[in-house]
């Protein structure tokens, strides 16, 4: 995590979360969160029963505002805080300085296949993959794909590869939460898991007309 940026965002959304709890729209969750004993016990549990290992430090158990509100609302945040936080996330996206979004789809396929990165058994600082096939159908020749996310087969053929579409896909991989606050998809750029070049390569895999994803 890029701590600086996350911490700044965290302070703002704490206020947002308080508004949610005061609103009473999510009674069961609010009741649970309002009971201080389980809260304290839960924090104690996290502190005592996990320990840092490899690159996975205890700071990973601290929730940022997005994680917090999604946890507390079972991924159904009310519109107000949702829009505020999504705007924040969108503003935090670091767009390519050269203005280009399309990399090499062959390199993108490798990134999509590779599910390693950021676990306690991965070397800190080692290159991560996107693990995209874990959740998405992408190239037609790979039959071992997950179904947590939608199929991305033929994405470029269906939606085109306009500069706007390229920017949208880049942003989505960089920070899916900027578009859907409680998306299951990790924020691959925001978290530092993928580099700008890796994200460009994935954009090419999904949108380049020559990519197997988009062949007829």
């Amino acid at each position, binding site marked *: 995590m890029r701590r600086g940026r996350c911490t700044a965002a965290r302070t703002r959304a704490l206020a947002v979360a308080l508004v949610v709890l005061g609103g009473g729209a999510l009674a069961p969750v609010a009741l649970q969160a309002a009971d201080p004993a389980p809260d304290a016990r839960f924090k104690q549990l996290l502190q005592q029963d996990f320990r840092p290992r490899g690159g996975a430090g205890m700071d990973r158990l601290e929730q940022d505002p997005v994680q917090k509100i999604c946890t507390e609302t079972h991924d159904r945040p009310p519109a107000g805080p949702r829009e505020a936080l999504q705007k924040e996330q969108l503003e935090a996206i670091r767009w390519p300085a050269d203005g280009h979004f399309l990399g090499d789809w062959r390199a993108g396929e490798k990134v999509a296949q590779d599910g390693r*990165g950021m676990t306690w058994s991965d070397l800190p600082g080692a290159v991560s993959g996107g*693990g995209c*096939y*874990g959740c998405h159908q992408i190239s037609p020749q790979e*039959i*071992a794909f997950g179904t947590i996310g939608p199929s991305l087969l033929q994405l470029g053929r269906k939606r085109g590869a306009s500069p706007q579409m390229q920017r949208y896909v880049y942003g989505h991989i960089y920070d899916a939460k900027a578009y859907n606050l409680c998306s299951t998809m990790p924020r691959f750029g925001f978290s530092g898991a993928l580099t700008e070049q890796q994200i460009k390569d994935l954009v090419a895999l999904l949108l380049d007309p020559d990519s197997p994803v988009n062949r007829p």
Partner: protein
Amino acid sequence: MTLHTGSTAPADADRRAALRAGGGLGLLGALTALGLLPPSAVRAEWTRAGFDAKSVAQALSDAGLGGGVNAEQIQLEAPEIAENGAVVPIRVFTSLAGVDRIAILVEKNPTILSSVFELPDGTEPSIVTRVKMAETCRLIAAVRSDAKVYLASKEVKVTLGGCGG
């Protein structure tokens, strides 16, 4: 995971000789010495031929199963997709009578010949076992019945599993 499957040594004559003298007859020799097996159970032809072969044809020929033809009577059951190549279940059976040898091969493994079974009279031509598969390829079953060899094969797709880390 990365799957490494392969032969244990280059296909050289020394290795074969060592296997014949060692692993090949060692158990039977020992069992015979212990009185667990009658001497007649030890057959001279029982060697480890075929495990070093680098082609399906060579493996079959070395294992005494050359010249086979595909036959519908040979049933080879295996999953279409193996969730993990480290363990791929396979069942081979046939309605043919007089079967005395069955072999199972994995077309694209470093060691193509997986196992060879000798079936005395009274043992049914039905074997269930599990192979390793390094990649998507055909599994092949060879069955010898009345000195003729019959074959069956089936492609099994080997896939990547899990979170990939």
